[in-house]
């Protein structure tokens, strides 16, 4: 099934939430996923994104993206277990030798490490998906400008995302063109495969360059760069309540940093897996983190943000 990964205004509470709040919340998750090592914490971060995805009615798009991440995770786990031999629990040992790495062996620890990394990746991708599915690209642009990022770079980024769907259409059409000429993209030896890809990618690249020139012409013709200071027709207004929401979005990050500072959330994979034993205090602290993470949902119901 072909899915629309473009922003769609589904009118949910999450869509109506001020983009800054979503930015704050998503950066909290992403940063926490990077500083925590403990798989349980990473799992919590990942799970915390699910109710928000459901509230945003984006689970179909989310699922198909996540499927892709699962493939990627599999690759991570396989590669990691093939090249990291620090673990002590050897599951499989090969007899041949890889230069510089030595005799490959697959250890339980390496597999678990791969799993941990995948969990981290899942949490991060899931959080970004929420941002992509619920923030209008142009609002993203406005938000980035509010954060004092330079207009031209922001515009370039937003244009490249705007033309992504056109690029995907192009790719489909160009593949059809070359298949009609007898090209079998996935057949033959590696060299042949690369050549086949070239038959599609070279026109794709040239078409994109043509498109770039045309867009530039069109922008110049509409007074782009006429004035040093540009005005903006729409602006994201941050009401006092919105500000509270933004702070609430950052709260999990602050609390998480505190936890990490206190020594929670670390984990040792090598040489053998650290035992997981949680005391009551840590369980309560984790619960607090979850509550803070999910606080975005009740806050979202409170008030709509206004776009002028």
């Amino acid at each position: 099934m072909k899915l629309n990964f473009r922003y769609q205004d589904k009118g949910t509470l999450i869509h109506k939430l001020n983009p800054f709040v979503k930015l704050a919340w998503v950066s909290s998750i992403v940063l926490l996923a990077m500083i925590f090592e403990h798989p349980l914490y990473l799992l919590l971060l990942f799970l915390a994104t699910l109710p928000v995805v459901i509230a945003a009615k984006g689970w179909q798009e989310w699922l198909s993206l996540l499927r892709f991440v699962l493939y990627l995770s599999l690759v991570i786990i396989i590669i990691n277990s093939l090249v990291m031999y620090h673990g002590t629990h050897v599951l499989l040992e090969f007899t041949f030798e890889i230069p510089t790495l030595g005799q490959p062996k697959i250890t339980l620890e390496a597999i678990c490490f791969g799993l941990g990394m995948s969990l981290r990746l899942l949490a991060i991708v899931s959080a970004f998906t929420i941002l992509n599915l619920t923030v209008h690209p142009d609002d993203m642009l406005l938000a980035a400008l509010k954060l004092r990022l330079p207009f031209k770079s922001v515009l370039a980024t937003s244009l490249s995302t705007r033309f992504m769907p056109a690029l995907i259409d192009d790719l489909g059409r160009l593949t059809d063109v070359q298949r009609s000429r007898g090209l079998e993209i996935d057949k033959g030896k590696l060299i042949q495969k690369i050549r086949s890809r070239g038959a599609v990618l070279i026109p794709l690249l040239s078409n994109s360059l043509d498109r770039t020139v045309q867009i530039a012409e069109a922008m110049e013709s509409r007074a782009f760069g006429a004035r040093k200071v540009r005005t903006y027709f729409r602006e994201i207004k941050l009401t006092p309540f919105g500000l509270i929401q933004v702070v609430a979005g950052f709260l999990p990050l602050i609390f998480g940093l505190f936890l990490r500072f206190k020594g929670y959330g670390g984990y040792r994979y090598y040489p053998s897996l650290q035992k997981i034993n949680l005391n009551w205090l840590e369980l309560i602290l984790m619960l607090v983190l979850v509550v803070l993470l999910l606080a975005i949902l009740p806050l979202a119901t409170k008030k709509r943000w206004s776009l002028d």
Partner: protein
Amino acid sequence: MIKIQNLTFSYAGSLEPVLKEINLTITDGEFVLLSGSSGSGKSSLVRCLNGLIPHFYGGRISGTVEVEGLVTINYSTAKLAIRVGLVFQDPENQLVTTDVEREIAFGLENLGLPRTEISKRLEEALDTVGIASLRYRSLHELSGGEKQKVAIASVLALKPQILVLDEPTSELDPQGAEDVLGIISRLNDELGLTVILVEHRLDRVIHLVDRLIVLDQGRIVADGQPAKIMRSQYEKLDKIGFGFPPLITLTQKLIKAGHQVNGLPLTVKEARTVLEAFFRAVKKPSSRINKKINKKPPGIPAIEVEKLWFAYQKEPMVLKGIDLRLCQGEFIAVMGRNASGKTTLVKHFNGLLKPGKGKVLVNGQDIKKLTVAELARQVGYVFQNPNDHLFADTVEEEIAFTLKSLGFENIATRVNNTLQRFNLTPYKKQYPRFLSGGEKQRVALASVLVAEPKVLILDEPTRGMDHGLKTSLMQFLKEYRQHGNTVIVVTHDVEMAAAHAERIILLSEGKVVVDGHKKEVLSRALLFSPQVNRILQGFEKYGVPQDILTVEETLDLLKEGGDGSVDNWG
């Protein structure tokens, strides 16, 4: 007011100027049609008007271009934007944001206007173009015609006195084109905007414009009132491959045959008045012409379609139970509105799509059992944009690529033969993408036909093509068919279908609504008939046969059926 004096321009890296000693004055409120074959310099001239040349495209320039008192070389394009608005060909590649409102505001924001002024101008622009209902829509949901209207509105919001449009309809379907041209002419009529329009569908606009300027190889070769130019410079323009609307050709041929014609008609309505006298004399030869539709005995089928159903996703159904039998040697035009399923249907013929339900047989073989590559030897497919075909370093390699993919032998000989057949031998070592439009089209065609498929599918081959290119493409197709091969074109081009196809298949909502000889399908229709037929529809009362579609047929009719009495009426 635009004043161009002795303008000569060549792009950086090219010796031959694209514009040569152009002298031109355009006064306020004029509606100017700029015409000429591709490569004649139209687009370059248009880009001089708002300073894209020389500010965006470098090169060597001499002479001056003055717009509303500003010499363009001294002002950037961004500064000139409030005086000259430029709308481009491809609606897809001139929109910068993601929804209608933001798109129209984009230029105004660049000017640094306060928010209240932006809202005011936004309202005006939406209403002027009549797209207020689209206001909150996402651009990617809009049709090509709607996008082009948004592009016009976004330029108008800057309040330019001059509106320049570079082939604004060439990427649109007929309905979208009609809408856009209607708006353009209204802007000139009601707001008094100066409009400079580059357009190749002359029959749609020739009667609306005040002035026609024809470019050839960078020079202005004709400039004046359209009717006058069509009358006095027909021969000269015909020689440079100017694409006259059929009714002009018809009238001119009558004049050439020594008949007296009062005035030169530009519209179907005018033509009916001016030419009526000729047809009053026709003595009921309708029976004769009708018999000419030779109901050929059913030939050997090349492609058979049985109860074909197809959908890209679960919903909606794009093809709904299509039954067809396409025979060897036929020239078939598949027509119909956008999204009626034309392209989806023909993509089944070379296996790019596989039937959801039902069957498609190519030369008796079920396509479900064959790969696209296996079918490529039997069915060739040429896509609309030749650029999509081209990726190799040389023309020679481009053509050889198909043969290699398909595992042919004697590649060198086959490539050489094909190069000769398509007059490409001189270019064989050149980079295909740097060739001219017509040459690229030939390379794309050659790269498909080198595999000698018995069936050739072309998707919108004439869209955006000038008259000369169309003629040479049709010549190639004619030669191709002489060997008993089948041609299938997906097209909106009624005139082309009327002149060259035999059989027309009309699709609507995924179903075949009409399938028959062109004389049955394209006659007596309202907009779906060629211009000549629409003229003759007015003369049915005189017994003029209603299945005539082309200028040649009409002339034949007058020769034979007129009893030689045409002169009496002249």
